[in-house]
């Protein structure tokens, strides 16, 4: 049987998370199809067809799919699900929203947030905020998976030439309506895929001080993140939150300023390649995962560091 990866997109661009989901699928089996469900998302379907290793793109085009409402998206996936042994989603807010609906309707377990493929039915996944890693085996005929994107290197976006097949869009379930979307406009790279991430914690003291991270981020081409404490205190918007229940990041370089390092925060960043922590408290738990720690006042370090780079 084949594997279906559900593409994530905004009707215009394929979201990079999909490339990581395809990479996980490629470790499970060979015949990989991608479902692009949207409205007017032809360019996305074409991009999906070019992903290395993808043999077919299913393209569902309809008004019911314009805003990726969970009810309609799940119904669309279910309309083609019988042909597939594995249904694979990226573990993004979009994937997490839809995948369990699909699993429940198929009466199968979902395996969330896989970080490795052991075999076609056995996967590893973090539990307890990453303080333990479980190896789980599914007894179900079909597997519904969400993929932790940072655990799989992105599949090459070019090199494939899959045929695009149209599938009928589902009718609108009629029980939910999209009202509005407020997405942060930023010239910075996206947090979950940036190669450098600079994070501020409660140590920054207020929202105004968060702007002190800008100059350093500009220099390094970095994305800016925040600890939950900083988000809860209103210093930073919620979509900046890095941690167990926020974004999971694993950049080449992660720099934490004034972040104490609660286990829930460490769960979201400890797979980063190089971790730098700046905190004036030498006992801060963040130092236990940092490759380079600097016990100092971040307000002195930030300008000096920005200048030195």
């Amino acid at each position, binding site marked *: 049987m084949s594997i279906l990866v559900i593409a994530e997109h905004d009707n215009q661009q394929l979201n990079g998370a999909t490339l990581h989901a395809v990479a996980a699928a490629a470790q499970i089996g060979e015949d990989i199809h991608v479902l692009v469900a949207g409205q007017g998302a032809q360019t996305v379907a074409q991009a999906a067809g070019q992903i290395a290793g993808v043999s077919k793109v299913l393209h569902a085009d309809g008004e019911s799919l314009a805003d990726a409402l*969970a009810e309609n998206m799940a119904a669309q996936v279910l309309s083609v699900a019988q042909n597939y042994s594995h249904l694979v989603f990226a573990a993004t807010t979009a994937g997490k929203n839809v995948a369990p609906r699909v699993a429940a*309707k198929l009466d199968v*377990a979902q395996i969330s947030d896989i970080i490795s493929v052991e075999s076609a039915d056995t996967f590893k996944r973090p*539990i*307890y905020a*990453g303080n333990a890693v479980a190896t789980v085996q599914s007894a179900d005929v079909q597997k519904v998976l969400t993929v932790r994107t940072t655990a799989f290197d992105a599949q090459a976006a070019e090199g494939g030439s899959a045929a695009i097949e149209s599938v009928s869009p589902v009718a609108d379930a009629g029980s939910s309506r999209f009202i509005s979307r407020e997405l942060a406009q930023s010239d910075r790279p996206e947090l979950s895929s940036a190669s450098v991430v600079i994070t501020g914690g409660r140590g920054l003291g207020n929202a105004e001080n968060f702007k002190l991270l800008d100059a350093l981020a500009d220099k390094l081409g970095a994305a800016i993140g925040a600890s939950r404490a900083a*988000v809860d205190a209103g210093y930073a918007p919620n*979509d900046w939150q890095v941690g167990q229940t926020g974004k999971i990041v694993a950049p080449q370089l992660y720099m934490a300023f004034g972040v104490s390092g609660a286990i829930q925060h460490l769960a979201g960043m400890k797979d980063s390649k190089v971790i730098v922590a700046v905190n004036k408290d030498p006992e801060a738990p963040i130092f236990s995962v940092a490759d380079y720690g600097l016990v100092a006042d971040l307000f002195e370090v930030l300008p000096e560091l920005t200048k*030195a780079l």
Partner: protein
Amino acid sequence: MKVLVPVKRVVDFNVKVRVKSDQSDVDIANVKMSMNPFDEIAVEEGVRLKEKGAATEVVAVSCGVTACQETLRTAMAMGADRAVLVETDAELQPLAVAKLLKAVVEKEQPQLVILGKQAIDDDANQTGQMLAALLDWPQATFASQIEVNGDQIQVTREVDGGLETVSLNLPAVVTTDLRLNEPRFVTLPNIMKAKKKTLDVLTPDEVGVDVAPRLKTLKVEEPPVRAAGVIVPDVATLVEKLKNEAKVI
């Protein structure tokens, strides 16, 4: 409008769990257990809806061992009117919990189910969506704001990159995110009052649900440990190390 609030008893968020030496599971003997933090937010939201007059009754429900009664008492001390425990010693996975909750929903006929977006033990983030699917109800996950307007509910959701607002026909399922509210502390008088509230106990057999696990846990391991780092004396050394040792800038 009746609101159903499912709550889960989990290892307290401050506890760092350890893996058992035989790698069969994590060791949760004698550790502090609490209500899943996202479920506390769900209870709080249900109680606030009642205080605002949008809800008439808040019913807390939990699935699991006898000790879940404590979690339900906490929910009632926060303001839930009564509670239902679906009691079993069996291992419960999200699909099974969703099926049990569906049975309770059919019995209780709530217009709204509010539950945490994820439990901090298995980190699955599935139960709410699965329940919505089994009931064929609309859903709004990761809610940071809820507004009930007659037979509809408008929910602002925290999504990657920002916020999204959807409107759902009731009945519906909503899962909570961190910014929805700040749960109240329970007070001693309310804890005493909660002891007198009704707590009904059902079993999976009584509601006709097969809870057999679909996933087998083969092994539970410690995550790979990061090698110890170094404390650098100043910014100049940090920059030198990042350039020449780590080679990341």
